[in-house]
């Protein structure tokens, strides 16, 4: 008998929003201790529609609309985690997490250590981070550096749909407190999701970076939305004969500095690209670690950081555009480091 040809691997286009929604759906189904809470997550389907359909499917006990008090519901979530549940706590944006930051740091991050491992806090704090479009100073701050600073927390920052899905599932299954920094502008962007990534057990290990594009002349290290800008930069520069290696960090803490070091051994040049402010930022940490490690000897030029301008984000479009790194700024930095 003739055998049937195996079906071709099905790759589909999935938006980051749908990938997050799938991840939440799958984890809510898999483990009944998992639940989602936050402002507008239930009946409104989520302020950014990430939890669309989940309240209808899982009901009041698993998807909970809270009163307007970040400190309140973050505290409640931490307490629930300490008591054995696995909450996913949504902040409408991480800017509002500042109202709750004592709960995130002093209660969630430090408790495992302070209790010598007796009390775990298996919680995920997630929500949009960093700049959006036209939301000005109080809605545009990037918190990667703030949360990445604290021992006891894991901090992830996805770019693609695959990152979003794999990291959220990994975060929910992780017994540590995890801060997941999403990006509002990425929610609607479609990415290819491989068949493997579509499976219900697809997780991306926390603490491992990914090389999104191979290159030989210079290493571009970035996270979240700016990985896309780096990819565009690489395409533009490839036409000029400059091959950029683009590393998507995926995790801020624990940082996969080995991946950056291995890349620098190959390319000898480094720039970091981030949406946050320059002082005490993610790029500053990467550069410091490179200097302290073996890869320093392979650098042919000082590393350069590309960051947002050191101002609170303005509202007017022309001002906003000039406050964030653009592709032209990354190209400029590459050429400066390569001295071309």
């Amino acid at each position, binding site marked *: 008998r003739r055998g049937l040809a195996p079906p071709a691997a099905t790759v589909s286009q999935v938006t980051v929003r749908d990938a997050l929604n799938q991840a939440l759906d799958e984890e809510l189904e898999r483990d009944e201790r998992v639940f989602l809470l936050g*402002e*507008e997550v239930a*009946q*409104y389907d989520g*302020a950014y529609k990430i939890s669309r359909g989940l309240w209808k499917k899982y009901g009041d006990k698993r998807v909970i*609309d*809270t*009163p*307007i*008090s*970040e*400190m*309140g519901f973050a505290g409640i979530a931490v307490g629930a985690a300490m008591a054995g549940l696995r909450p996913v706590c949504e902040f409408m944006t991480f*800017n*509002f997490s*500042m*109202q709750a930051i004592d709960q995130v740091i002093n209660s969630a991050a430090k408790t495992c250590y302070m209790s010598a491992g007796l009390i775990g806090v298996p919680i995920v704090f997630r929500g949009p981070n960093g700049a959006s479009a*036209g*939301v*000005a*100073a*109080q*809605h545009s701050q990037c918190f990667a550096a703030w949360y990445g600073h604290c021992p006891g927390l894991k901090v992830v920052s996805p770019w693609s749909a695959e990152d979003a899905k794999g990291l959220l599932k990994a975060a929910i299954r992780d017994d540590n407190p995890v801060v997941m920094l999403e990006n509002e502008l990425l929610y609607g962007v479609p990415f290819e999701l491989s068949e493997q990534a579509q499976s219900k057990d697809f997780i991306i290990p926390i603490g491992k970076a990914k090389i999104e594009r191979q290159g030989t002349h210079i290493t571009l290290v970035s996270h979240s939305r700016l990985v896309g800008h780096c990819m565009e930069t690489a395409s533009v520069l490839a036409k000029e004969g400059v091959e950029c290696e683009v590393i998507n960090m995926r995790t801020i803490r624990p940082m996969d500095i080995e991946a950056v070091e291995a890349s620098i051994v190959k390319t000898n040049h480094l720039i970091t690209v981030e949406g946050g402010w320059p002082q005490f930022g993610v790029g500053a940490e990467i550069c410091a670690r490179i200097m302290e490690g073996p890869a320093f000897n392979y650098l042919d030029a000082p590393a350069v950081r590309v960051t947002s301008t050191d101002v*609170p984000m*303005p*509202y*007017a*479009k*022309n*001002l906003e555009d000039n406050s964030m790194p653009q592709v032209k700024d990354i190209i400029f930095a590459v050429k400066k480091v390569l001295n071309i």
Partner: protein
Amino acid sequence: EEKPQFPGASAEFAERLEFIQPNVISGIPVYRVMDRQGHILHPSEDPQHVLLLEHVINMYDPPNTCYLHVWLLTYTVSTCVTPGTCYQHVLLLEHVINMYDHLNTYCVLMYRGYPLDLFMAQCYGNSMDPGKGRQMPVHYGCRQRHFVTISSPLATQIPQAVGAAYAIKRADANRAVICYFGEGAASEGDAHAGFNFAATLECPIVFFCRNNGYAISTPTSEQYRGDGIAARGPGYGLLSIRVDGNDVFAVYRATREARRRAVAENRPVLIEAMTY
């Protein structure tokens, strides 16, 4: 008769175990001046102010509903604020009051004469904007008109307003602060801190809460389980009242009296204006 002698509270003894039941079925009554047909119920409650009448006519006149223009912009906070809770209650607050507002009550700034041009300039973030395009739309502010620039995070204006009231008390005997917020924002920790400090520091401040039943999609049944915001006032030591926010005269009278007492007695007053 023995009396309790605790520093924390002054009360009688009770000899039966009885819990206080929160009263949400028949809670604090809603003060109104007009009935549903608009007739004044008791002549003694009628404000009878000629100027007021003129403004009432202006208020219901369609050209003044200029917030319609704001809806055309990419971002705005649609306001369900009815006329009663925006114009009238600030009408006859003769003395200068600092205003700590939030997104839904910019009409008070409009009443103070802030030009429509500047409202629109702020929303567009163009070169005419006194805020120089830094802030999102509807985040107005005007120093000359004592209207503190609006800030996005909810309820942060409450403790700030209290601080300003404290400063004003020390500087000038005849001024007050009014602070606006919604019933959802009253859930924030800042609201608790603000109320408590206003009372303990004896500040001349009027807290004006607009309760329209919803915070985006979250109904009040999920926002709180007590008798609204007015019922919290006595818990903090605030003079409290609940008014019909759609009743122009009721809001006017309540706010006027609140302001008078806030300044005369250096104490905070809480007004909860019910609306849709």
